[in-house]
């Protein structure tokens, strides 16, 4: 199978409110920066474009149609869209390259979550007869998941605070982070609970922004003469929509995706995990079999800034950055969708 490389990544700042910025205005600067990284003019210089977004975030149908206005799609381009995190748009793009219909692709994701009440908006992703009409919010579902783990002795509140403290600390070197800084585990544990057992710090901030990635065949990357990382494996799996039918303390779908993506075939220097809640990072590190040798979420992860529909793509981009800069040889990126880690995508990246 064709070897595919990542050659560019950029993300906007994660901001709590993007203000007077429409989709086009949000996306365009990010695209400009990835094009500049490779020396491209616009989307005409890649063979395929795919994006990820969700209409309900800001409450307008066809958000992605406006996104096309940022591309320079005249003459017309090969373009598609998933109503999912853009990590899945990257997956679709990889299939396009593998089948020989493209040598390069631009992938972008964007979301303005600030206009709505995100945890309530996401309740409408649940079973439309039994759960959505009750308006069970996404934070409460995660809180129940965390309590299952606490009750079973699988984690402690201190473990959760550890994750948060490390995320905030790591985020100090991430200029796009929304939440960063030195905070001690004791300080975090001293905070009152928010949706018990979760504290506010265990939950991701609501963020607006966009991110973009360019991928291509290795031959193309060499032709462009830019640093790149190889995507050596990628796979994704979904689980039952009935939360109570799943073992919420584990992530079976992540494990399956990781096996198929070949995570275990070598050591892992860096992992970027889309864990919107602190306890979920622990589930994921265990499922992926990560040890102390792996640097987890050096960007701060999504606890430091969570761009809905782009954060999964950004995780892949963050691992790319560390491999391209020579800090890491091999890394794993994870993306998630749905309540309590229902749907998971795992990517393995390696240095060229």
């Amino acid at each position, binding site marked *: 199978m064709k070897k595919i490389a990542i050659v560019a990544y950029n993300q906007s700042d994660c901001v709590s*409110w*993007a*203000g*007077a*910025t*429409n*989709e*086009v*205005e949000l996306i*365009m600067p990010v*695209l400009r920066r990835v094009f500049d990284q490779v020396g491209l003019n*616009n*989307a005409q210089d890649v063979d395929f474009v795919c994006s990820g977004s969700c209409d*309900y975030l*800001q*409450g*307008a149908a066809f958000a992605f149609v*406006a996104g*096309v*206005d*940022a*591309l*320079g*799609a*005249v003459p017309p381009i090969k373009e598609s869209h998933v109503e999912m995190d853009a990590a899945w748009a990257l997956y679709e793009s990889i299939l396009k390259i593998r089948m020989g219909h493209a040598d390069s692709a631009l992938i972008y994701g964007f979301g303005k979550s*600030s*206009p*709505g*009440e995100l945890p*309530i*908006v996401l309740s*409408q992703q649940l079973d*439309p*007869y039994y759960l*959505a*009409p009750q308006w069970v919010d996404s934070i409460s579902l995660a809180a129940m998941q965390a309590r299952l783990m606490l009750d079973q002795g699988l984690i402690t509140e201190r473990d959760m605070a550890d994750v948060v403290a490390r995320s905030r600390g790591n985020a100090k070197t991430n200029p796009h982070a929304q939440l960063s800084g030195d905070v001690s585990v004791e300080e975090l544990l001293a905070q009152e609970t928010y949706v018990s057992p979760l504290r506010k710090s265990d939950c991701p901030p609501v963020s607006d922004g966009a991110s973009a990635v360019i991928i291509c065949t290795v031959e193309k990357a060499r032709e462009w003469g830019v640093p790149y990382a190889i995507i050596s494996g990628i796979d994704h799996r979904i689980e039952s929509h009935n939360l109570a039918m799943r073992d919420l303390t584990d992530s079976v779908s992540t494990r399956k995706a990781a096996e198929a993506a070949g995570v275990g075939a070598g050591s892992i220097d860096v992992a970027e995990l889309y864990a919107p809640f602190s306890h979920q990072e622990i589930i994921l590190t265990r499922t992926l079999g990560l040890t102390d040798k792996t640097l987890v979420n050096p960007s701060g992860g999504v606890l430091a800034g969570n761009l809905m529909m782009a954060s999964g793509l950004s995780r892949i981009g963050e691992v790319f950055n560390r491999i391209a800069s020579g800090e890491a040889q091999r890394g794993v990126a994870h993306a998630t969708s749905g309540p309590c880690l229902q749907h998971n995508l795992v990517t393995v990246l390696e240095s060229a």
Partner: protein
Amino acid sequence: MSQEREMITGIDVPIYLQYKFTAGTAPARFLSQVKKGVLTGQRCPGCGNVYCPPRGSCAACGLPTEEEVVLSDKATVQSFTIVAIPIPNNPIQPPYIIANLVPDGSNLSFIHLMSECVNEEVHIGQRVQALWKSEEEWDYAMDNIRYFKPIDEADVPVERIGHMPVTGWED
């Protein structure tokens, strides 16, 4: 299970979500001018075409548009339809005309209402002008222009629609 009452086969599920929408920079700038009774567009730094209403980019070039251009409120009919059903939340009564109109100085059309015309006589190339609401009603809204109405100017040849300067095209 109850035999007396019918099985439930359908339910009404109210889903009402609250949002706070913020207009983008380009539309906000445009609407701020409309509030003053002025139609503006934005010019693409690449191809030079003027977009009205502007979205912030030239969709063809994928470039940000910054240069604001003041347009005329006179326009040319690029095409139209006569509509026989009411628009939700719009008081206008059918049959009415919805037209693709290119304001002078802009290079592409927008959709707006036409009125004060004989529906059967509306035609492509026809010249129209905005009929604004009274000034005290002006808001950040395109419906500050109640509708466009025909004016006594010669038709524009089809090939020139979309290429009309703000003034002086008659010569």
